[in-house]
């Protein structure tokens, strides 16, 4: 397993956000985490990235414990995170945003090549290369956030609600991009409220309810599961 999340617990003050969650991510796969608002989806990703302190449990990446390392060290291990709400740097240009993603890299030539390939994948970013990120549309900002994460040359990509607030046609574009990223060898953990999109993309999925894993299984089988259909797909 590439990523092993074992029985982690996180709380905010007295409120338990995660109460013993276990998740595994293998190579070459898209793993979806779905659930209602407040179920703990984002908190799970934030715990993996070191943004939330674990009270219990352990997280291992490529066999090594990364629990409670600071976020910058976890990026250094090879995990990039596209945060909820995109969080691009509003007053940095598109190019500066992308280069910030490569902050820890020392392989200058390969970095330049990766920058070119990000612009190939997202031609609209190239058109706006010198503009401040705050002037971009929501879809463009999401592409910038994804491109920025790819600039770190990650071996695992965490994506938090990439479809949030985007028009359906843009959501489709993002879905294509996620497939492409995985096909190029970077596994993706996808947190989504849009369960339909997530389950169609993913190989395997976890359903979170009030801080625990309520259900897990192959994404196809969850699409047919009565509980999932009633609670998350609205059919």
């Amino acid at each position, binding site marked *: 397993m590439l990523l092993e999340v074992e029985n982690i617990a996180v709380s905010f003050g007295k409120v338990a956000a995660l109460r013993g969650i276990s998740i595994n991510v293998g190579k070459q796969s898209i793993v979806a985490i779905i659930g209602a608002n407040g179920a703990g989806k984002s908190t799970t990703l934030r715990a993996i990235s070191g943004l939330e302190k674990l009270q219990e449990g352990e997280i291992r990446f490529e066999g090594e414990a990364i629990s409670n390392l*600071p*976020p*910058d060290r976890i*990026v250094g291990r090879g995990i990039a995170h596209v945060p909820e709400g995109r969080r691009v*740097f*509003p007053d940095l240009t598109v190019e*500066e945003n992308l*280069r910030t993603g490569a*902050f820890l890299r020392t392989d200058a030539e390969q970095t330049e090549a990766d920058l070119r390939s990000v612009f190939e994948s997202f031609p609209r970013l190239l058109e706006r290369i010198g503009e401040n990120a705050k002037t971009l549309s929501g879809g463009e900002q999401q592409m910038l956030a994804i491109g920025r994460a790819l600039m*770190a040359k990650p071996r695992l990509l965490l994506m938090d609600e990439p479809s949030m607030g985007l028009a359906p046609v843009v959501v489709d574009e993002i879905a294509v991009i996620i497939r492409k990223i995985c096909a190029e060898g970077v596994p993706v953990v996808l947190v989504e409220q849009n369960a339909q999109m997530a389950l169609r993309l993913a190989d395997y999925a976890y359903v979170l309810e009030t801080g625990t894993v309520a259900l897990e299984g192959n994404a196809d089988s969850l699409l047919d599961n009565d509980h999932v259909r009633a609670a998350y797909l609205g059919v």
Partner: protein
Amino acid sequence: MVELLAQTGLNAIYAAAYMSLIAVGLVLVFGVLGVINFAHGELFMIGAYVVVAIYADFQMPYVLAAAAALVFVGAVGILMERTMFGPLRDNPLGGLVASIGFLLILQALVSVQFGVRMEHVPPVTQDVIVISEKVRLPVQRLAVIIASIVFLSLLWIFLRKSKFGWALRASAQDREAASLQGISITRISIIAMFIGGALAGIAGALTAPLISVNPHMGHSVIVAAFIVIIVGGVGSLEGAVVASIAYAFVHTIITTFWDGVIADIVGLALMLAVLIIKPTGLFGTADRA
């Protein structure tokens, strides 16, 4: 009248120059660490006292004293980060209170060492550029103006062109997102506190031969620096520089033609007006306010 205006303009440029150095450092620290450093005015004061010690007392060259002030006060900034702002990272109010305590400690240490009376720093040069009979620019003031422009330009280039400069700006805009790019918040905070301290220190060193040096001199500049930051927009470095220049002109002109107290009142009134009309400051963006 024209000559009086010209002289007042020169005075204002001088005031804007060193005020910008102080305000930019304070903005940078607030942006990156998310904490208001109330001891920033005392860092300015320490810079002046380094010149008192090295240049006035030990009679070493002035340039050496100024360089020492830059490095020493920058180091004091790092000390503040390591002992207060770092441990209180998730507690901005705690950081603010700690900085108020530190301010008192610095004032007390300086009072014990140097006494509370005004220090006399001998002039570095008495030369005056005589533009006309009533318009004169002392070379010392010109040096402050030039040095401020040089330091602000260096800062600008650092922030725009270097990797750590990007990292500083990114951290000021979104600290958590910056940490997700692999930027160490600890390291970037240390860099920000060094730069903020060094700029305040050099401002104190540059103005030491021109103003009254005493343990409480930080007080007046910190009030002006806060006005400038609020007018310019919290978190905006460009705004701080532009607002420094505007504030210095308004303040100097009113002081010259009316009175210094009225100038202070007008400064605070300007701040109030900006807060009412555009609460994010003239150059601030909504998401930082």
